[in-house]
Structure formats: structure tokens, C-alpha cells
């Protein structure tokens, strides 16, 4: 079945709402407007304003209300329009959602799902181009996932809703128009494991989310040069699938990490650190990171392009780890 990433998200939301009366969707313009990215288009009319609930521009209150409703027995899906605005709800996510189970001695749980768009690449300038999933992946008590494929866009939500802990879903906004084939009956997928998207033998390209299509494109370019690159999609950013990272590095002996976050103190840094700690002797060359340049993302296209990971940069990084 030919479909889009956006439609996969929409179908996942619709199915979740139809399947479980405890599930409701809330966020800014998710209802009548149909969602800033049209991910909930039609759901308000089909399911009503209680289940598909428009909120005021009060990120802290409606994210906190989602956490409270989860404590109260519901299964809320909270949409934050973009991760840029999630900073206004950081207190609720960090101090409440992430802490309550442990701090209450296991008495309370917070089965909330918080979705948000992430990433740059649309000339939206510095305040609308953040990739903050790495910040959230720092926090114990949260699960953080980044669907990079149609199947994950369709299948991660039901698994996240079934999880008793808070799950944050980061959807890279550039992926919403991604087209592809989805098998009939595609459903829930696991939110524990990384996945090899392209097997290879010469170098491991570890990435996730919006950088996955770029990394796969780079692998294609490399194949034409006779370089066999393995692409590992992390999928789950917390807890990281460390075994999968070590396994691919053990196989290829070389590592390039592609991450749209800024380079310093990034997810890419965590991946490299894990390999340094636990896979050091597998390595035949120093690992290389392809991340965003350490600037606020600028508006003009040529500068924005230069600031983000791109296929040629990934290809150059691979040549560097292969040939020094």
C-alpha cells in the first residue's frame, strides 16, 4: 500500500482513539484545524472535541494536564506542535513525568505519550529548527523514540501507549511527506531495539530520525564507489540499544555517527562514548561524527544547508574513516 509518513501517523492516532476509550489527543490546533502538520486531520469531526481536544497556547499546563490525566487513569496523547515549544513544558516533563514513579517509591505511574515535531531544513530560522531529542534522551524515567520510517510512524504509537511509562515521540518534520510502501495490516512495532536498515561490511553508519534518509542515500553513493556501508537506525534514543551499536561496530570495525543535533554533548557523543568504553578493541579507525554545526540554525538556504548533516558530508566522513 502506497502511503506517506503523515498518513501513517494519522492512522496510528485514529486507531488508538478508536481502540481505547481512555485515549484522547490534545494539543494546539489538533482539533478543528487538523493539526499543524495535518496529522490529526478529520479526527475532530469523527471523534468529537472531547477526544480530539484543542488547547490554548499553554504548553506547561496542557503537558502537565496530560501527565495528571495519565496519573488519573487515562492514556493521553499530548501533541506539542514542535520541540521548540516543548521548552515551555520542560518542567512538567522533567520534574513530574520522569520522576514520579521513582520518587513515589513506585506508587504512581505516568502512561502519557508526548509527540512533537523536530528538526530543521525548512528555512524556519533559529527558533523553529531545533533538534532537542538528545536533551530528552538524557533523562532517566523517559522513553524517547524517533520513528524514521513509515512502519515506525505507524507502529510506535500503539506500543508507546501500551507502555506504563512516559514515552516521547520525535517526528522529524521533513519526514511527513515521505512516501513509500506500507504492508497491509502493518501494526505495532517494538520500542526497544535499533534496526539495521541496510546491511554492509566496510563501515557502520549509525543514525536515527530525519537523518536516516540522508544516511541511506549516502550509503547508495558509497556503494557506487564499492564501499559497503551498514546503516543502523537507532529508532529508540532512550534507553539506547547498546548491544546493536556494539554488534555493528564489531562487524565493520569502523563507525560514523550521523545526528542532526549539535555535536557537543550530543546523542552522537553518547554513541561514540559507548563504543569507546565497550567496543574499543573492535575499532580499526577513530570514529567520526557528522552533526549540525554549532550555530543557531540560520534562515538562508545555503547557510542552513551548510549547518546540517548532508549526503556529501556523510560520504566524506566515511572516506575519512576508511582511508584516514
Amino acid at each position: 500500500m502506497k502511503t506517506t509518513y503523515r498518513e501513517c501517523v494519522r492512522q496510528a492516532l485514529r486507531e488508538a482513539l478508536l481502540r481505547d476509550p481512555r485515549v484522547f489527543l490534545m494539543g494546539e490546533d489538533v482539533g478543528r484545524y487538523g493539526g499543524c502538520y495535518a496529522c490529526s486531520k478529520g479526527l475532530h469531526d469523527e471523534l468529537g472535541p472531547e477526544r480530539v481536544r484543542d488547547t490554548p497556547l499553554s504548553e506547561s499546563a496542557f503537558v502537565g494536564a496530560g501527565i495528571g490525566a495519565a496519573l488519573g487513569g487515562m492514556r493521553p496523547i499530548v501533541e506539542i506542535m514542535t520541540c521548540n515549544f516543548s521548552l515551555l513544558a520542560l518542567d512538567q516533563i522533567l520534574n513530574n513525568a520522569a520522576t514520579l514513579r521513582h520518587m513515589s517509591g513506585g506508587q504512581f505511574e505516568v502512561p502519557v505519550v508526548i509527540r512533537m515535531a523536530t528538526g530543521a531544513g525548512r528555512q524556519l530560522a533559529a527558533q523553529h529548527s531545533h533538534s532537542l531529542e538528545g536533551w530528552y534522551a538524557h533523562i532517566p524515567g523517559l522513553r524517547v523514540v524517533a520513528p524514521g520510517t513509515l512502519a515506525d510512524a505507524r507502529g510506535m504509537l500503539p506500543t508507546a501507549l501500551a507502555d506504563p511509562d512516559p514515552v516521547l515521540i520525535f517526528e522529524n518534520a521533513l519526514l511527513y511527506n515521505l512516501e513509500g510502501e506500507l504492508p497491509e495490516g502493518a501494526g505495532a512495532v517494538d520500542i526497544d531495539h535499533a534496526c539495521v536498515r541496510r546491511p554492509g561490511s566496510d563501515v557502520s553508519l549509525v543514525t536515527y530520525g530525519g537523518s536516516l534518509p540522508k544516511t541511506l542515500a549516502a550509503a547508495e553513493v558509497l556503494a557506487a564507489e564499492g564501499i559497503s556501508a551498514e546503516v543502523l537506525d537507532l529508532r529508540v534514543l532512550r534507553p539506547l540499544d547498546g548491544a546493536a551499536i556494539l554488534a555493528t561496530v564489531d562487524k565493520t570495525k569502523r563507525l560514523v555517527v550521523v545526528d542532526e543535533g549539535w555535536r557537543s554533548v550530543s546523542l552522537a557523543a553518547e554513541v561514540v562514548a559507548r563504543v569507546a568504553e565497550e567496543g574499543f578493541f573492535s575499532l580499526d579507525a577513530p570514529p567520526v561524527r557528522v552533526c549540525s554545526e554549532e550555530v543557531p540554525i540560520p534562515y538562508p538556504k545555503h547557510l542552513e544547508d551548510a549547518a546540517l548533516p548532508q549526503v556529501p558530508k556523510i560520504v566524506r566522513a566515511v572516506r575519512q574513516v576508511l582511508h584516514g
Partner: protein
Amino acid sequence: MSELTRERGLRLLREMLRIRRFEERCAELYQAEKIRGFLHLYIGEEAIAAGVMPELLPDDAVVATYREHGHALARGVAMNAVMAEMYGKWEGASRGRGGSMHIFDAATRFYGGNAIVGGGLPLAVGLALADALQKQSRVTACFFGDGAVAEGEFHESLNLAALWKLPVLFLCENNLYAMGTALERAQSQVDLVAKAASYALPAARVDGMDVVDVGDATRSAVAAIRRGEGPRFLELVTYRFRAHSMFDAELYRTKSEVATWRARDPIALLRARLDLGEAAMAALDAEVVSEVDASVAFAEAGSWEPVERLTTDVYARRPP
């Protein structure tokens, strides 16, 4: 105002005295280094928790602040469990993991113990939203201080609760100071009832030193909320007799101001109203002190959570 029966009066007096004696002992135990971390005493403000809680039903929810020993005790969290929590013992209300600022109790639907000023308000809105969606007639009582009124979360939460007509009782304990900053030094509009009312929900000011007034105001507010009339806001004007925390030298207020408020001690006020003699008061006090003694013994005898359990309850399930 309802008539104050002697039975109700004595019950309220006992509850306030339980909180007072418990906290006086906590202050001693802090000096003895049995209790560590931050310790924020409620002494002087007991009439609020003692007045509010009897007006709630067991299935209602409570969201409190980091100055919440009184709320926990008045809500019915066992004193033993609260004291053990102060010690950080495994037998504590939160298994010792929260301490003074983070008392949780699922059995009484006591949702903490929130140490970020204003952070509990969105949670209370969400608990009430869950009740509304599940067609429950439960009420969520949310305590916070005057300092929280300066936070964005206060304004966002009152707006959301009023917009969606959610069953929340907002209880602002106005003790006139946000730690050391007086209300008039922090807020352009010091009329907190006017602020709350601007979100189109009924709001009223109550003498927070009069436990009977607190109870009566809570009763009518809770009844309206349970009738489906949406949220209510009460400002309870009170005063903290002790320092903000154990690290506070109290340089921001005068001794005479403290003395003026101490003359309106809620326990003394109610005792005078009940005309309770020395012997009866001493007998009540002895009962309360023996409960406190027992809680200290319970906490002393408690155990430390094994270090091997440090990372349990971070997630419900471990990665496979």
C-alpha cells in the same frame, strides 16, 4: 457559617495539634541530624490543611507543595509513614526516596509533595480532566502558595481549568512571603482573588487562621464543584511562624510582625472558642505527643532501602 459542634471543634483542634507537635519534633530531629535536606515547616498554617481535608471524600485527590507534612497528616497518611519518610527510611510514605518535600500516598490519593513552585497546578488540572472524562464526581484539591501566583503555570492552569469547567479546588495559602520576598515586592496586583477571578472562576478570600472558616468555605466550594459548576479558588490568608526553611535567618520580616501574627495562632484561637481548660488541653496534647513519639520510634526502627534497589522504579519494565 455552620454551627461549630464541640465534636467537630475538638477534631479540628486535635488535627492542628498533631501537625504542630509533629513538626516541632521534626525541627529537633533536624538539629540532631536525623532529618536532612530541606525542611519547610507549616507551623502557623495548620488551620488550612486541618480545615480543608475533612471536607474531601476518600476518593478525591490532593496535590500539595513542598511544605506538605500538614497536608499529608490531615489527609490521613499515617504519621509513622510520614516520619519514616522524613528519615529517608524504606518504610516511609515514598519508600524514603522523596523526603520532606515529596510525600506520596496512593491509598489516600495524595499526589505529593511537589517542590517546583507552581508545578503541581497542571497535574491537578490533569487529574480533574481524567475525572471529567471518566464521568467521576471526584474533586482534586490543589494547594500552592502566594509565590506560585507569580508563575506562568498558575495562570495557564486556572485558565485551562475554567475553560474546561474541571473539578479543581485551587487553594492558595497566602503566607505573605515567597521565601523572603514579600507579596507587594513581587506582584503588581496583590489582590490574589482579583487575579484568580480574572479567569472567570468564582474566587474568595478566607481567614486562614480560622480553621472553622476554612472548613466552611471549603465545604461550599467542594459542593459547587461536585455539582459540576467548575473550578473554585480560595485564598487562605495565613502566616508562617517559623523560618522558610532551616537555612533561613529571617532578615526580611520584623519580630513585631511575627509577634502580631503569633497572637492569632490558629490553635490558640480555636482552643479559646471551645473554652478548653488546662487539664483537657494537656490530656489532648499528651495523646498527640505519644503519637509523635511512636512515629519517631517507628522511623528509628526502620530500615534503609538496599542500594541494590537504587534503580528500581525508574521504568516499569527493563529493556530486554
